[in-house]
């Protein structure tokens, strides 16, 4: 992803030496890093000295290390570059763990530098010591503890290589303080490649030919794309779109994949899965050939596994061999980069002279249109009380055509955002999919805004999630980042309340958002702008004012308190057992098997 800047001029010279801290800054520059999200502390002060001495790399001082990691995620997801984080030892590193886990689950390329006590104190329970490599081993793609000065430059470059290549992910480099002071040789990134790590990029050509033939002959095909399409770069989304259109098939996307296929295209069936559309899930159930690209048959997507798309031939394209046959046995796996494989598929489609299979596809589309006519995302905005769906729909309509990026928190508002805010391009939508981290969206929006200073960046938020990382408003004021938090305030942890209502006998245990702050005053206290919409006829004006305000804005959108998010496949249910609305529920209580699932 990030192209290392070449420094050929220096190649033949003997390696320069400098302090470890200087090596780190040099390596960051050579890796093309422009911005680093961080928070200082004793163990990393030598690096802060080097930051102080230069202007090439911008440091953004966050207010909590978790937010630094989410900000770097937002930066990475909206640019396709590697995000970069710097935190101190001990609590700095442990605060970063949630963000690292989030990035691992969603395959986001990050390099996180953590301070560490000096090598001779490691293992002594020294002040602010934590076993950072031990703690982060299961929540990073890889991590390093640098104990030898001569290894530092190599490790730095390798960290960026590992983060960005293959299935992307977060990499931690743990840096004992004595290494930061030690004289270290510096080498550029040209010669550094991990010895063992060589992910496969190109797909097997015989398998690709077979896949294209299956697709060309399919009577009821469906394309099911995920975050891997986004990670493979904007070109992958273009080729995916091209292929779907050539085949004439329907396409659905996961929560992570939204934007990889234009939502405005009539072939788009919407998101699939637990809160996906009826037509997407029914098409998955009844298709005869399923083409999964860069998605992983996640439990939110498949519903009950033994009833998942029982009669289809499944093609699975993924860069990570461990995604193949993990949850669902597939018929034709192809390992490699989505962009490379899509390019090859398009070539085969052309060279073999395949045509869209018009006649059977017309029947297939007939079926799909019948499902579509259920209009599963319909809602009724009848009173003056704002419906959450409507608030998001209006936000979408009013921002259409603008240079706009959306992040979200986690809960009902997140699902409504996925349903009612439509994306025609990749890299415009940032949400915590795998880990489902409340508190992700606000700092992520900050990272997006850093990368795209002139764009409109909106965090579609819930009132409970917002309070998990609201301290970042202070960062936004400091750096004049005009991020907007569009808070869907239903005064409940709505998604929790919904599960309690539908599955736990309406025992609303500890899910009410008691003692909420006044979000308008809160914004003002930080030095931002607060707006509120309490009735339908205020909504549009408030959205307009939010868009027009060149400062950080918190918008308190007071919505219906007890709205549920539909459609819904309850845990443990199959695609065809979808609940379409509130009246659907009574007849189908959740199975015992479903109760234990999350």
């Amino acid at each position: 992803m990030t192209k290392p800047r070449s420094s050929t001029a220096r190649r033949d010279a003997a390696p320069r030496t400098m302090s470890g801290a200087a090596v780190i800054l040099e390596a960051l520059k050579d890796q093309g890093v422009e911005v680093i999200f961080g928070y200082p502390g004793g163990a990393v002060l030598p690096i802060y000295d080097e930051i102080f001495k230069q202007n090439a790399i911008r440091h953004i001082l966050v207010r909590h290390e978790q937010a630094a990691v989410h900000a770097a995620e937002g930066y990475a997801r909206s640019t396709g570059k590697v995000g970069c984080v710097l935190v101190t030892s001990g609590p700095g590193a442990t605060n970063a763990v949630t963000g690292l886990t989030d990035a691992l689950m969603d395959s986001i390329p990050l390099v996180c530098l953590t301070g560490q006590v000096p090598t001779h104190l490691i293992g002594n329970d020294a002040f602010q010591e934590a076993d950072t490599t031990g703690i982060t081993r299961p929540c990073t793609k890889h991590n390093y503890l640098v104990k030898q000065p001569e290894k530092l430059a190599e490790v730095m470059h390798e960290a960026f290589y590992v983060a960005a290549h293959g299935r992307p992910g977060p990499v931690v480099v743990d840096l004992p303080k004595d290494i930061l002071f030690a004289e270290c040789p510096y080498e550029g990134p040209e010669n550094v490649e991990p010895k063992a790590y060589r992910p496969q990029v190109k797909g097997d050509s015989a398998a690709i030919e077979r896949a294209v033939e299956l697709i060309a002959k399919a009577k009821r095909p469906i394309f099911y794309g995920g975050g891997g399409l986004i990670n493979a770069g904007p070109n992958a989304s273009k080729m995916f779109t091209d292929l779907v259109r050539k085949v004439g098939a329907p396409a659905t996307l996961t929560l992570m994949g939204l934007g990889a296929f234009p939502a405005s295209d009539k072939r788009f069936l919407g998101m699939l899965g637990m809160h996906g559309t009826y037509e997407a899930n029914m098409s998955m159930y009844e298709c005869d050939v399923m083409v999964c690209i860069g998605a992983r048959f996640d439990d939110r997507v498949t519903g009950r596994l033994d009833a998942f798309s029982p009669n289809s031939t499944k093609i699975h394209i993924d860069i990570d061999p461990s995604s193949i046959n993990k949850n669902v046995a597939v018929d034709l796996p192809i390992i490699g980069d989505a962009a490379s494989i899509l390019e090859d598929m398009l070539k085969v489609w052309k060279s073999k002279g395949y045509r869209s299979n018009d006649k059977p596809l017309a029947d297939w589309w007939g079926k799909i249109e019948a499902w579509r006519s259920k209009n599963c995302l319909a809602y009724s905005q009848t009173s003056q009380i704002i419906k959450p769906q409507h608030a998001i729909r209006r936000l979408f309509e009013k921002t259409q055509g603008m240079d706009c990026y959306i992040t979200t928190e986690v809960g009902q508002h997140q699902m409504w955002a996925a349903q009612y805010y439509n994306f025609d391009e990749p890299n415009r939508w940032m949400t915590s999919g795998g880990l489902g981290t409340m508190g992700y969206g606000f700092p992520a929006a900050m990272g997006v805004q850093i990368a795209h200073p002139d764009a409109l960046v909106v965090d579609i938020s819930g009132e409970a999630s917002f309070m998990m990382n609201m301290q970042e408003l202070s960062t936004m004021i400091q750096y004049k980042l005009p991020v907007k938090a569009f808070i869907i305030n239903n005064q409940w942890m709505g998604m929790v309340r919904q599960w309690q209502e539908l599955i736990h006998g309406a025992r609303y245990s500890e899910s009410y958002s008691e003692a909420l702050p006044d979000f308008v005053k809160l914004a003002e206290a930080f030095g931002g702008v607060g707006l509120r919409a309490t009735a339908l006829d205020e909504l549009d004006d408030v959205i307009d004012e939010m868009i027009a305000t060149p400062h950080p804005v918190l918008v308190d959108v007071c919505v219906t308190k007890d709205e549920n998010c539909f459609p819904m496949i309850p845990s443990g249910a199959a695609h065809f057992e979808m609940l379409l609305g509130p009246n659907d529920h009574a007849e189908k209580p959740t199975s015992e098997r479903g109760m234990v699932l999350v």
Partner: protein
Amino acid sequence: MTIREEEIQRHTIAVLVSNEPGVLARVIGLFSGRGYNIESLTVSEVDEINVRSRITIVTSGTPMVIEQIKAQLSRLVPVFDVHDLTLESPHVSREMALVKIRNDGEQRIEALRIADTFRARALDSTLESFVFELTGDTGKIDAFIDLMVALGEVEVSRTGVVAIARGHDLDMPVVRLNKARRRHKKAEPVK
């Protein structure tokens, strides 16, 4: 969650890794974190110059789980190569045990006789004890220990399984290129 009822199989897997700090923790963490079984795990450096260790893991699971285990191992950054010896080829596997038995009288003589038929060597003896060294496949060692337990008080130390494919193919050759050449060598992609 399994979608097919599949039978549990035991597999011996050989893994070539870069011998760097934390690599064993990574492998073991993978097994515990994802709920896979480890029946036996052995590790030692096999290539000093290129700093590579070979790990032999005996594990069990459904074919889908075994496939996952191999894929998960392969994607660890310091892993060079993974071979499923059970699936790929006939192989030989051995472990070694040191078995200390404390007994006396007739039972002591019987222990010695059995050790002889198992080709175990006595490495140490006192008037009331022996330490036997025994090499063989897991079944043979289990059988020997069972017999010893019937004849006295027993303490056991076992190495766990090491294994290698039969025949002339070198699945994971010890490469001894010098550093300058290694830099220009393009390694095979991890399978």
